């Protein structure tokens, strides 16, 4: 057993962290968030580096790497709250590659891999998806319905109403489409892979929220001591670490399962998304609380993490929905194990 990354994976992580540390500094993120714009310059740079296609197979112009490598990038982009449509576009390409027909893959994957086209993915009911992150600028939108069917809708064929989501670092829209091109393959397997990507981003968000909080409570003095010396504060930080590490281990397990144990992926992905959704919300809320009054101000930047976590947690079902799924999986296992 080895939970560590390979040298190549560590290199990807190192490169991504240093690049985003340079190019997605808090002031730059704030600038784009306030203007509700994508950071085009950064996105072009990421495309040059092949990020959008990292997990898409080489045959469609991607990098042909695995879900673990994708997970690493999602986590780093989450840490930075980078104002780029990486996650929505990746979720769309994941569904198309995993569940699409050869024609659908041929049609959309090369553009999504190079980043020239953008994708988005949302859950829909009666032809309407109430909030699809990335849909404001997407060329193709994958709508997954309650029965686990998915269809592709080109932006021109859908009624797209932009929304001012609380997380302004990515576009969001209501999407309505009556028709679309159904994905014929394993949609649930594709959705599970998308869940792992969202969970990875949430782990990155948690990590950053904890880092910012630890730095703040070491620095901020009240009653003559750093507030981090008070157990009411330090124990909150310890809880943030526990929640983060729980989410990280479940997410790593799910990313690994996607490649090495696909039969176990449904359960692993539900666990990861449940743990990461709850951790994302709890840890970023704690970050605001531990920053005190400052944490409630626009300038403090922790709120971007809270807002990103809110939308990510809701995406394709949060903790409660994932646990309902898990309970069904557990009940199924029990039936399967029972003597006839």
């Amino acid at each position, binding site marked *: 057993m*080895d*939970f560590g*990354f390979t040298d190549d994976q560590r290199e990807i992580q190192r490169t991504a962290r240093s690049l985003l540390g340079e190019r997605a500094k808090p002031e730059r993120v704030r600038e784009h968030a306030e203007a509700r714009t994508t950071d085009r310059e950064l996105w072009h740079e990421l495309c040059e580096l092949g990020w959008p296609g990292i997990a898409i197979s080489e045959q469609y112009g991607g990098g042909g790497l695995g879900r673990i490598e994708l997970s690493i990038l999602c986590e780093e982009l989450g840490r930075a709250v980078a104002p780029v449509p990486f996650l929505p576009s990746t979720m769309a390409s994941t569904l198309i590659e995993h569940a699409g027909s050869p024609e659908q893959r041929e049609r959309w994957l090369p553009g999504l891999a190079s980043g020239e086209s953008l994708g988005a993915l949302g859950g829909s009911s009666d032809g309407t998806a109430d909030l699809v992150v990335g849909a404001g600028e997407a060329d193709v939108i994958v709508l997954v319905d309650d029965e686990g069917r998915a269809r592709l809708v080109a932006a021109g064929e859908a009624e797209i109403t932009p929304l001012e989501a609380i997380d302004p670092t990515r576009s969001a829209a209501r999407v309505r489409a009556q028709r679309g091109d159904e994905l014929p393959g394993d949609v649930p397997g594709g959705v599970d892979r998308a869940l792992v990507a969202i969970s990875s981003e949430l782990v990155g968000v948690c990590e950053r929220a904890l880092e910012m909080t630890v730095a703040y409570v070491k620095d901020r003095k009240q009653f003559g001591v750093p507030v981090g010396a008070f157990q009411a504060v330090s124990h909150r930080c310890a809880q943030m670490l526990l929640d983060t590490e*729980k989410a990280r281990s479940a997410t790593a397990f799910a990313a690994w399962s996607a490649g090495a144990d696909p039969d176990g992926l449904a359960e692993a992905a539900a666990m990861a998304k449940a743990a990461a959704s709850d951790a994302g919300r709890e840890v970023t809320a704690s970050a605001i609380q531990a920053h005190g009054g400052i944490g409630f101000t626009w300038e403090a930047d922790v709120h971007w993490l809270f807002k990103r976590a809110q939308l990510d947690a809701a995406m394709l079902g949060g903790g409660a929905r994932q646990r309902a799924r898990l309970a069904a999986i557990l009940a199924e296992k029990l039936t399967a194990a029972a003597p006839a």
Partner: protein
Amino acid sequence: MDLTFSPKETAFRDELRSWLADNPPDPEPVDGGEDARNAWRKDWQRRLYDAGWAAPAWPVEYGGRGATLTESAIYYEEIGRARVPLAANTLGILLGGPTLMVWGTDEQKERYLPPILSAEEIWCQGFSEPDAGSDLASLKTRAVKDGDEWVVTGQKVWTSGAHYSKWCMLVARTDTEAAKHKGLTYFLMDMDQDAVVVRPLRQITGEAEFNELFIEEARIPDANVVGGVGNGWKVALTTLMNERAGLGFALQIRLRQLLDDVIAEAARKGLLEDPLYADALADIHVRCESIRLLAWKGLTDVERYGQPGPEGSLVKWLWSETNQRLTQLAADVIGADAFTFGDSWSYELLRARGNTIEGGTTEVLKNIVAERVLGLPRLKAAA
């Protein structure tokens, strides 16, 4: 990342699993009280010992198998999975033996290690005192040199198995002038003397797993000092570090089994269709799997990279809280029996309250995480 076991590890698991299947312990005696139960557990360890399974993590030269950390964790997983008892002398195997291997003299190793393994001599632990719990270094039990002996007086608490133990791992103060961590010495105290009185400590489950020790001028030969006079804090820490690693895996499997039992019972009563129960059970399932992953990550990181990540300090915390949640939820799933003495679920419900206290309270674990993992400043303790 590779979350599978190597062929060697799998072979180790298979060998143990089939041995346990072929050699089950005798049924636990229902009559005869603690004495019969103790004899039964000693007999079980003797059988593990004869088959070379008493302490696989011990080096081959001391009668173990030289098992790796992973194999040792597999050992405890399988012991848990087979629902067989732990060896009678688990404290000697996990704490006493490994401490002697690090700090003991050749004579001490030769004298004490074999009977630990064969269960001929059972060991107990004399660290905590009524006024020294989380703040262990403030302990007051005194040892005074008298010729080539030490004379010990004081009180210890939370000593499990004291009635059946031959040796007590005792930490006592040998220098009252030195700083509180520096004046301590680690002794092996013979329990077989009138100066040591054992009084069972009745706990909230109604039984007495632990004891108090009243020590009134007990005698310990100088040859029974381990690791040198004044070095007791360091020696004791070796032991405490050994305490959690292996046992954690048995506890983790035990939690899994309890959860599976509760899920099965909930399904039988149709409660899995109740969204509130389904949500609570699934949440515990996620926690349970996280504990497994964090425990394995902590262990394999040590094995591969030489140092543990932050997981080590998180596993016990998460396990203890999860076991409490589970036993609480189980009480509602099971119903009346779970609130009646004599039922295993009522026992679990009550026993679980100790989990967040024993072996380091959750509050102390949070302090450790905050200070050592996150690097937060320490609030100055009152003088």
